C-alpha cells in the first residue's frame, strides 16, 4: 500500500510539471493558432536562467527543509521575466513578421522548430553539454501525516498548484483574461467587437513565458538540468494538450495529471500484476508506452480531446 502511495506522489509531481507546461502550450496553440515547437526550449531556458540567477541573488542557504533557500523564489521570478523577454523578442523579430505575411499555421509550426534549434544551440554555447543540478545535496524524505515525501516534492506540488490557480483566476476574472477566452471561442467575432489582436498575442506570450520559466525550473529541481530537457519534455506536454483538447484549460490540467499518474501508478500496478503472474517482463522500462496506449484509447473515443471543441481535429 505504501508502495502505491509512493508511486502516486511520484506521478502527481511529474503530472504537475507537465500540467504547468501544457497549460501554456494549449493557450499558445489556441490563440496564436500554431504548434510552438520552441516551447520546450523556452522551458530549458527558464531552468538554466534560474541556475544563473541562483548564485547572485540574496537568500542563499536552505529553507524549511528544502534543498534550496529563498534565493530560489527570487531566481525563478527573474528567470520567468527573462524567458518572457526572450519570447517577446523572438515574436517581435520573427513570428510577428510571419504573421503579418499571413502564412499558414503549418508554416509557423515549422518556423518554431527552427527557433527551438536556435535557442538550444545558444544554451549549449553558454552552459555546455554537461548535466547540472541546482543543489549538490541529496535530500532525504521526511514523514508528513504518515506519508514519506521529499520537501522539494511538496514545494513543486504547491507552487504548480498556486501557479495554475493564478492563471485560472486571471483567465476567468480579469478583463484581459476574458478577452483571451473570447478570442479562443471565436476569433472573428472577437476582432469584430474591437479586441486588439496584437495585445492579445502579447498577453499570451507573457503568460506562456511565465509558465515556461517556472515549469522548467520545477523540472530542474525534480530531475536535473540538461540542455535537451525541454525538447524531450515536449512530447508529454503536447500529448497532454491534445488529449485534453486544444485550447482547454481543464483539458491541459487533466491531461497532464493523467499522463503523470498513469506512467507511474498504472505502470506500477501492471508490474505488480505481471510479477504476480510470475512472468519475467520488465514493464518498468516501458513506462511512456503504457501512458501513450492510454492516451490513444482516449483519443479513439473522443478524437477532439476530453474537453476540446469538436471542430478542432475535424476538417474546418
Amino acid at each position, binding site marked *: 500500500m505504501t508502495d502505491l502511495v509512493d508511486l502516486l506522489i*511520484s506521478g502527481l509531481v511529474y503530472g504537475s510539471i507537465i500540467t504547468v507546461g501544457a497549460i501554456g502550450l494549449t493557450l499558445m496553440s489556441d490563440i496564436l493558432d500554431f504548434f510552438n515547437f520552441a516551447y520546450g526550449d523556452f522551458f530549458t531556458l527558464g531552468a538554466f536562467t534560474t541556475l544563473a540567477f541562483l548564485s547572485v541573488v540574496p537568500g542563499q542557504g536552505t529553507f524549511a527543509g528544502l534543498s534550496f533557500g529563498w534565493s530560489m523564489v527570487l531566481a525563478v521570478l527573474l528567470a520567468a521575466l527573462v524567458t518572457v523577454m526572450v519570447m517577446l523578442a523572438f515574436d517581435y523579430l520573427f513570428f510577428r513578421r510571419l504573421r503579418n505575411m499571413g502564412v499558414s499555421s503549418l508554416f509557423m509550426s515549422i*518556423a518554431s522548430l527552427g527557433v527551438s534549434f536556435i535557442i538550444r544551440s545558444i544554451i549549449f554555447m553558454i552552459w555546455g553539454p554537461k548535466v547540472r543540478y541546482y543543489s549538490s545535496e*541529496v535530500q532525504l524524505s521526511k514523514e508528513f501525516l504518515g506519508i514519506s515525501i521529499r520537501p522539494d516534492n511538496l514545494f513543486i506540488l504547491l507552487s504548480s498548484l498556486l501557479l495554475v490557480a493564478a492563471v485560472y483566476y486571471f483567465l476567468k476574472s480579469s478583463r484581459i483574461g476574458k478577452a483571451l477566452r473570447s478570442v479562443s471561442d471565436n476569433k472573428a467575432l472577437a476582432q469584430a467587437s474591437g479586441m486588439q489582436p496584437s495585445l492579445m498575442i502579447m498577453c499570451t506570450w507573457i503568460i506562456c513565458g511565465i509558465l515556461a520559466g517556472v515549469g522548467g525550473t520545477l523540472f530542474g529541481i525534480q530531475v536535473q538540468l540538461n540542455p535537451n530537457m525541454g525538447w524531450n519534455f515536449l512530447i508529454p506536454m503536447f500529448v497532454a494538450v491534445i488529449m485534453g483538447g486544444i485550447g482547454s484549460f481543464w483539458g491541459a490540467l487533466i491531461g497532464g495529471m493523467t499522463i503523470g499518474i498513469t506512467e507511474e501508478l498504472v505502470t506500477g500496478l501492471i508490474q505488480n500484476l505481471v510479477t504476480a503472474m510470475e512472468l519475467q517482463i520488465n514493464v*518498468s522500462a516501458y513506462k511512456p508506452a503504457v501512458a501513450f496506449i492510454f492516451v490513444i484509447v482516449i483519443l479513439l473515443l473522443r478524437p477532439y480531446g476530453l474537453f476540446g471543441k469538436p471542430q478542432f481535429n475535424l476538417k474546418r
Partner: protein
Amino acid sequence: MRKRVFVLSLLFMFICGSLMLPGCGTEESSSGDGGVAVEEGGEITIGALLPMSGDLADYGQNVQKGVNLAVKQINEAGGPLGKKLKVVFRDCQSEPTALRDGAEKLVNVDKVPAIIGPMIRLDVATPVASANHVVLISPSNTPTWVTTLDDDDYTFRTTASDAIQGQVLGQQAWDCGYKTAAILYINDPYGGGLAESTTVSFEKLGGKVLGTAAYDPGEVAYRMQLNELAKGDPDVLILIAYPESGVVIIREALSAGLFDQFMFPDGMQSTQIIEDVGGDFLEGMYGTGPGAAETPSYATYLDDYQAEYGEKPATAYTENAYDGVVAIALAIAAAGEEAFEADPGMAIRDNLRVVCNPPGEEINAGVEEFKKAFQMIADGTAINYEGAAGSIDFDEYGDTVTPILIWKIENGDIVPVKSVLAEQ
C-alpha cells in the same frame, strides 16, 4: 509575397543548420581538399567517431584526448612510413541516428580507411564500415554480442567483452561481503548483457540476485523500479547505467532511503557521479571498469598523459582509444605500399594482428618505442604491440582480453584498487 517567404525560410534553415552546435560537425579539419584520405603527399587521415555531446559526452571528450596524444606521439616518432597521421573527429551525440550519419560521413565524405570508435553501438556502425572496407576499432564497446557481429573481420575492439567484466563485477560484489543484490540496468544491449553476466557470476559464488529491473534513460522518476527492487531488502544495488540518468537514480534511491550501498560497472566510472550526487554518500563504494595492469606500457602512458594535459585521465577508455590509434599506425607501416593502393582498409585489417599479436619483439607505449617499432617494421622484424590498456592481442573475432580494474571511491575520487586478468 510567397517567394519572399520561401527565400526567408531557406535562409532560416541555413542559419539553423549552421547553428546546430551539437550537430555532426567536423571538429578538426581533415586533409582539406577532400580527396583520398591516404595520400601520397605526406599525410594519412583516419577517422574518430566519438560522442562529444549527449549522455556520453564526458567520455567522448576525454577519449578524444587519448586519441590526440597517440597521434602526437606517432608523429613525433616519424609517423607510419614517414607520413603524418591526422584524425577527423565526428560527433555521434550518443545517439544511434547521429552515429550512423557520422559513420557514413567518415566513410563516404572523409574517405578514411580506419575509424576509432564508436564508443557504443558497434552494431550500427559495422554495416556501414565493413561494406566499404573500413576498419573500426572501438575503445569501449563491451557487450558480448560484439564478438559475433557479421563484420567481415573489419570490427575490432581494444577492451574486454562484458562476459569478462560481469564475471569480475559479480565476484567483487561477493568479495565485498554482499550476500543479496538487486540489479538495475539501462534498457539497451550493453545493460542487458552485463546484467546477465553479473547475475550468473554472483549466483555461482552463492549470492542471490533478488530482483532485476530495467530503466529508460531520461525519465523523470525511477521510483517504481527502485520500490520494486528494494523488496526483500537486498544488500546492494548494482547500477548498470551511464552518469546522466545514473545520478538521478542514486539521488532518488538515497532520498527515499531505499538503498545506501551501490556497485558500478565501467559506464559509471566517472568522477562526475561523485560530484553530482554530492555529500559523501558514495564514499567507499566499489566498481569495475577497463583497467590496465601495472605494466611499463601503462606507466609510460600515464606519465605522458599527465605531461600533456596536466591531469590524469578523468574517465575510462582513454588508453584503449590510444592503443587503437597506435595499432592502426603500426598496421599502416606494416602494410607498406598496400596502405595507399586500391583497398587501404583491407591492408590495415590484415596487418593489425601482424603488429599486435605474438610472436615478435614487444613494443610498449611512448615515442621512443614507436620509433623503434617503425624501424623494426622497415627492417622486416616482427613486432608485438603491448598496449597501455592491455596486451592488445586480437583473437579471430577482433576481440582482446584486457584486464578489468576494480576501483573504489575514496575521498571524493576514483581510486584504482587492483587489476584482474580474467579468463574468457
